[in-house]
């Protein structure tokens, strides 16, 4: 059933509506929320919402509980290829928990949060941005990891990144929900403005597996679920561009690299020269790679999961 979670009047003859598809069966009070589209330029979650909705509508009899699918927390951003909320220059994922009597973004954030709160699990699907490609991964802060890690392992991702907490991240949807006791996992995968079907189907299997584990789904065949590499901040090596120019990768995404390998070149098309090479600072799995070629000094080129520190959970 399609429900409106929050709405606000735009200036001319239009309402902004945040909607969800609430699929319910049986007598279980359990509820899982699938949330995406906070950042309007991240579209990987669109395919997952479609595929999951279609699957559950077809297999409703196998469901015991409620699955709420929120495909677009920022509909105007999705419509206009904007990461933030159009007209506000605001990252929606910095507006939570919002307030009842706040501005339009704050009010919407508040109503979304109220609607999700109390769910057994919430999965917030992000898609990197237009600049970087990511392998399917879950990110969580150290304080939440004890609670969240068992669920993260059900989701068929390749990698779980347990990062240090930062005050600025306290305004995210995930932090607000986790603080309110609603277990929320943040997925990052693929690249902005595109759909990577292979990754979407991978995560879809993970979500079905989670539902089976929560005893909300029965009688279904789940393919073998991957064991993710779990890693702390210290195990991640960053490569930022050493120069301005055009980045051309030399290595394929998702491969294992050796320390000193050339990840790519920063070239200058005007002079026909190579400005700098981007070199791997350590050996390991290349789990982030730059997709958008134009770089300034500092633009993130790649992230590597250090081999020697793997599986340190």
């Amino acid at each position, binding site marked *: 059933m399609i429900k409106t979670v929050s709405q*606000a*009047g*735009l*200036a*001319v*003859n*239009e309402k*902004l509506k945040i909607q969800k598809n609430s699929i319910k069966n049986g007598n279980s009070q359990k509820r899982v929320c699938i949330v995406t589209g906070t950042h309007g330029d991240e579209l990987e979650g669109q395919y997952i919402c479609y595929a999951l909705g279609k699957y559950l509508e077809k297999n409703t009899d196998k469901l015991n509980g409620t699955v709420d699918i929120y495909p677009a927390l920022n509909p105007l951003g999705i419509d206009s290829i904007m*990461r*933030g909320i159009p*007209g*506000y*220059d*605001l990252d929606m994922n*910095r507006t939570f928990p919002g307030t009842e*009597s*706040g*501005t*339009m973004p*704050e*009010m919407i954030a508040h109503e979304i949060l109220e609607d999700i709160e109390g769910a057994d699990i919430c999965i917030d699907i992000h898609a990197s*941005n237009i*600049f970087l490609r990511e392998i399917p991964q879950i990110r969580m802060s150290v304080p939440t990891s004890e609670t969240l890690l068992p669920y993260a392992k059900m989701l068929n991702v390749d990698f779980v990144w347990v990062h240090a907490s930062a*005050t*600025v*991240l*306290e*305004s995210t949807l995930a932090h607000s929900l986790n603080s309110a006791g609603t277990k929320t996992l943040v997925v990052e995968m693929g690249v902005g403005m595109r759909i990577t079907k292979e990754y979407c189907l991978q995560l879809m299997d993970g979500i079905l597996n989670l539902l089976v584990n929560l005893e909300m789904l029965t009688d279904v065949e789940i393919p073998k679920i991957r064991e993710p590499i779990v890693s702390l901040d210290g195990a991640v090596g*960053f490569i*930022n561009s050493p*120069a*301005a*120019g*055009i980045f051309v990768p030399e290595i394929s995404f998702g491969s294992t690299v050796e320390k000193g390998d050339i990840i790519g070149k920063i070239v*200058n098309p*005007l002079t026909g020269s190579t400005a700098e090479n981007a070199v791997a600072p350590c050996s390991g799995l290349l789990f982030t790679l730059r997709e958008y070629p*134009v*770089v*300034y*000094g*500092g*633009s*993130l080129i790649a992230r590597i999961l250090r081999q020697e520190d793997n599986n340190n959970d």
Partner: protein
Amino acid sequence: MIEKTIFVLESVYREPLEVKAFCFGDMSRKTICIMGAMRGNEIQQMYVCARLVQELKKLEINGQIVKNTGIMVIPCANYHSMNIGKRFWAMDNTDINRMFPGYNLGETTQRIADGIFTEIQGFEYGIQLASFYQSGRFLTHIKQMVTEFTDDDGLVDFGLPYALKRTPKPYDTTTLNYNWQLWNTKAYSLFTHSTDDMKEDSADNAVNAILRFMKNRGIINYSIHPGYVTSVINESDMLQVHSPCGGICKIKTKIGDTVERGQVVAEILNPLTCEVLAEIKAPEKSTVFFHFESPLIVEGTVIFKLIKNDIIRGD
């Protein structure tokens, strides 16, 4: 005056971004730093700093800068965005003022923030010419984030009618103002009437407020009207009036006006028929501190910020 380039960022096809600082007095002393535009639409903020450069030049020539004090003015940290009409960083739309204290091995705007912060940390006083994300008009005022490091004596030395104290939210912790305070600088944000356009009278007020502060804090010898007796107000004590619907927004009052309880201060019209959808009434007798300014408005937008007359202190 010494002109200094404090940070350089190369670009593949554009001339490098060179952040310029103008220094006065004894530059071995870090007394006061004034930071202008960090966003591409902060034209007024850049202009106020540029005007200040002219004033300080004269004061320096006339020997009116107090011995053993150093003044630095950075009018514009982000003209790469300004030159192409963008508010945030040209390529990735990130906000330099959400990147402090910066990181020299991080992303581009983290590096810009780091490059600037390295130069401007350690000043005794820091003033940032700030802007609000929504279009509207403010009474020129000074704002300070309340942290455990806050020293609020200086708030009244600007001689502006109002000073606001703000309790920081999580997203404030990566701003310049907050980080300045973390590093022991007494930091203030100065808000002028507008952002994208240049308003001479408001720029005058801002320049005078900064000079008055410098005079009151013993940085310059200067004779200037003492200004107003400042009312210091907690931001959370202000009345916020939200628009109950979307439509065409007609403001019926001006900033600084005193409005009576129940007075109609704005109307929202149906944009297709001009039928009145809502009359916005002042909830209390108060002074108009901020009003929204744009022909179209969305439901929930803060249309007014009002200061209740009975909470005004200091006058």
